[in-house]
C-alpha cells in the first residue's frame, strides 16, 4: 500500500495570518499593473489582416455579386459545407448564384474556398463569433453571407500580397 505522509505544519503556517497578508499584498500590487484580460463579449476580440474568420461573399461596387456560381469552392470545401445553384443573368457576366448556402456548423474555417475561387468572390472575413438558438439559423444563405467589398478589403489586400509573394518565389513562370 502507498501511504502519503502529511507534512507537519509549523506554528507560523498553522496561524495562516501571515499567508493572508501575503496574498493581500499580491492583489494590491496587481491592481496597479496593466490589465491583460478583456471584457468579452462587450469588448470584441482583436483582429488583424491574417485573421481567418468565417467566409463571406463579395458584393462589388456596382451592387452585383462577384460570384459566378462556378462551384469551385463547393468542390474544394473539405467539410461539404457549401451548396450552390446557378442561374442566368442579363449582365455581361452571364451567370450568378441563385442559391449559395454555407452550413456554418460544418465550416471548419480552413480557407480553401477563398483559395479556390477564381473570381475573388469569397474571402475569410474577420467575423469570428458563431452562436444562435437553433441549428437552422446557422445555415447561412446568400443574404446572410453578402458583404460589401470595402468590409473585406483588409483581407483582400493581404491575400493578394501573399499570392504575389508565392508567385514570385515559385519557379514556374
Amino acid at each position, binding site marked *: 500500500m502507498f501511504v502519503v505522509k502529511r507534512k507537519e505544519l509549523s506554528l507560523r503556517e498553522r496561524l495562516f495570518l501571515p499567508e493572508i497578508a501575503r496574498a493581500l499584498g499580491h492583489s494590491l500590487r496587481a491592481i496597479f499593473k496593466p490589465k491583460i484580460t478583456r471584457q468579452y463579449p462587450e469588448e470584441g476580440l482583436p483582429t488583424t489582416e491574417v485573421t481567418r474568420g468565417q467566409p463571406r461573399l463579395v458584393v462589388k461596387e456596382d451592387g452585383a455579386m462577384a460570384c*459566378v*456560381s*462556378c*462551384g*469551385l469552392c*463547393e*468542390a474544394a470545401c473539405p467539410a461539404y459545407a457549401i*451548396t450552390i*445553384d*446557378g*442561374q*442566368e443573368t442579363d449582365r455581361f*457576366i*452571364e*451567370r450568378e448564384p441563385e442559391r449559395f448556402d454555407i452550413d456554418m456548423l460544418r465550416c471548419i474555417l480552413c480557407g480553401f474556398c477563398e483559395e479556390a475561387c*477564381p*473570381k475573388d468572390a469569397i474571402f475569410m472575413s474577420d467575423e469570428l463569433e458563431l452562436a444562435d438558438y437553433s441549428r437552422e439559423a446557422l445555415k447561412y444563405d446568400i443574404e446572410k453571407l453578402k458583404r460589401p467589398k470595402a468590409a473585406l478589403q483588409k483581407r483582400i489586400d493581404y491575400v493578394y500580397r501573399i499570392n504575389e509573394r508565392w508567385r514570385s518565389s515559385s519557379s*514556374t*513562370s
Partner: protein
Amino acid sequence: MTKIIIDGVEIEADPKQPLIRACHDNGVDVPMYCYHPGLSPVGSCRICQVEVKQGEMPPRIMVACKTPVAEGMIVDTRAPKAHAARRECLEFLLKNHPLDCPICDKAGECDLQDFAFAEGQGEGRSVEPRRKLDKRKSLGDVIVLDEERCILCSRCVRFFEDVTKKPQLTVSELGSRSTISTFMDRPLQGNYQGNLADVCPVGALTLKKFRFQARVWNLEKHFSTCGECSRGCSITVEILRRREVKRIRPRYNPDVNKWWMCDVGRFAFDRFNEEERIEGAAVRDAQGRLVETGVSDALAKAADILKVHPSPAIVASPWLTVEEGEVLLALAERAGVAAAFVAPPPNDLADDLLHTGDPCPNRRGLVELGLAAISAEEALERIGAGKSAILVGERVVELLGEEALEDLPAALRLIAFVRHPVHAPATNVCIGVPTAVERTGTWINVDGGRGPIAAARPAPPNVRPLTSTLAALAELIQRQEAPA
C-alpha cells in the same frame, strides 16, 4: 486486319478505320477536336498529330484522324516532335478562347480543358487582345451559341450533314471572325438539335434548358433507357443531389442509337421532377375522402374489394417493364381474368433516324409476354363493363384521360397503382408507384433489343416497387380463396 505498332506495342487494326480509332481502341489516348467517331473526318484542327514511320521514309508528323491504317506503320504518339506540334496547335486554339471556364457549362467535361491541362502550356504568350464576338447567339429553341468559345472544329456542321442529312449550319466569315451560323439567322429545325451540345467539344453550343443549372461534376450519372418511343435509345440519366433529374444524354450503343438521341426523349424529364405524388397509399373512407394509409392496409383493402367484386378489368400502362408485366400476368391469372395495356396511337414524330412514332417503349416486351395492346376507348369500355378494375403503372391515368375516369359510375371499384392520386369518384384504393428513374427492369425495343432501365435515385421510402406490391396483392387474393 492490318498489323501496326503503336507506342511500341504491336496491334491488329481495321484498315477501314482511321489511325485514331486504332489508338483509342487500344487504350492509347490521342486528343481530338474535329474528329468524332460518328462523323466524317475532316482533319482540320490538327490536335491529333502523331509521329508515323512508314517503310524507309523518315518519321513524319501526321493527323491520326485522316490517316488510314497501313501495314507496317510504326506510330509514336509521345514523340517529342508530335508533342510539340500538338502543343503549338493548342496555343493557337487558346489564343482567342475566352477562358471563362468558371461560367462555362462544359467545364469539367470539356476536351479543350482536358487536353490543355494534359499537354498545353501554363501561360499564354500572346499580347494582342482576344477577339470579341457574340456570346449569346440563340440558334432556335434548344441551343445557344457562344461564338467566342467556338474552336471551329465544324463537328456541328457535319452533324447535320452526316446524321440528319439536312444541312442547317455553316461556317461563315473569314479568319478570326469566322463563326457558326444558320442561313439568314433562321432558327434550327428538327428533333435532333440537342445532340449539338454533345458533339461540340467545347462549351460553344449549350442547351438552353441546362444552361447554368448545375456543374457537371455534381451530377450523378446512371445508365438507363429512354422511354419516349419504342426505339429505346440508351441514355445516361444525370441527377443532382440525389433528387432532381437535370439532364438526359445519349449513351453510345452501336445497335440502337449510336451516339445520338432525339430532343423529345432528351427533354422528357420534367415529369420526374414533379413533387406531387402519393407517398405510400391512399384509400377512400366512409365520408368519401381519399386518406393516406400504409401500403399493406391499402393492399388488404384492395383484396377485400376483389373478394366481393371479383373478375376486375386489368389495364396497364405501356411503360411497364417486362418484370412488372410478368407479375401483373400472375396477378391476372390469380384473379381469373386477362390483362391488357393501353397503347396510344402513333404520333407524328416518326422519322428515318431514330424516333419510331410509337410512344410505347415496351410494346414488344409486353405483347410477347401475353398482354394485349388495346386503345384507350376499348380500355374504358372494359373498365365500365365490370364491377371492379385495376389500373397499373405511371401515366396510365394520363392515357385514359382523367375526365373519362371521372365519368365512370361511382359504384365501380377502382384500384389504382399510380403516381398521382386519382380523384375520380370510382377510385377506392390508390397505391404509389416509382417513376422510370426510380425503378429497375427491362424494356424490349421495337427490334427486340433489351433496354435495361436502372434506378437513378431512390424512390420515397414508402413507395414500393410495382413488382412487390402486385405480388403482394396476388398473394392476398390466393390466401382469401384458400379457406373457401
